[in-house]
């Protein structure tokens, strides 16, 4: 299911497990698919200088980010034999234990999904203007840095 127009990847707040389950269910009619690979980013309760993260607040340069997500999508379809690809990223507040990134790739074969998923996730981390502000339990904050 190649989709050539950029779409809005962002969702307000956390991505629910029900939404993920429903996305999986929707693919059961696509009987050329043999392998799905799903990446989920979950907000960690990191302890930094004795203070514990309680949530991350996401903001983004939305137009540019959606254009970048689209580029990553096109380039993954070019590089790998994929049937479907879906990317969702949270905006706003996502509490610890909740999911902020959902990347879902499907292909006839498993080799393609493994390579494609890692490529997409690394590209998102490196190239998409999204910002995470880590909110501590005492309401202070720091700007997240990706490793």
């Amino acid at each position, binding site marked *: 299911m190649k989709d050539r127009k950029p779409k809005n990847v962002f969702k307000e707040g956390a991505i629910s497990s029900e939404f993920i389950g429903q996305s999986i269910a929707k693919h059961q009619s696509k009987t050329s698919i043999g392998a799905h690979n799903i990446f989920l980013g979950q907000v960690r309760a990191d302890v930094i200088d004795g203070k514990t993260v309680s949530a991350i607040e996401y903001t983004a340069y939305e137009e*540019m980010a959606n254009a970048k997500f689209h580029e990553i999508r096109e380039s993954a379809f070019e590089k790998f034999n994929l049937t479907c690809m879906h990317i969702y990223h949270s905006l706003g507040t996502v509490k610890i234990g909740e999911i902020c990134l959902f990347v879902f790739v499907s292909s006839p074969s498993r080799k393609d999904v493994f390579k494609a998923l890692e490529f997409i996730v690394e590209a998102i981390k490196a190239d998409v203007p999204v910002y995470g502000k880590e909110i501590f339990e005492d309401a202070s904050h720091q700007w997240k840095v990706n490793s």
Partner: protein
Amino acid sequence: MKLNIKYFGLLAEVTQCAAEVIDFSGSSVSELLELLFEKYPILENKDFQVAQNQKIVSIDTLVSEHEIALLPPFSGG
């Protein structure tokens, strides 16, 4: 020319500004940055990239579009 300058993440916090319109009569991105450093001296020590019309550009690039964004290191996902 009138430029829409956008600040993101940490930069929006330190400038206390998410977006503003600036009158710019210079030519390159580096000249624009000099202007912004004058207005917000704190920007000078910060790590960021510049996007012109949503594309990352070098400081030698000519300013030819109205939308300029200052982007600190990304931390999505």
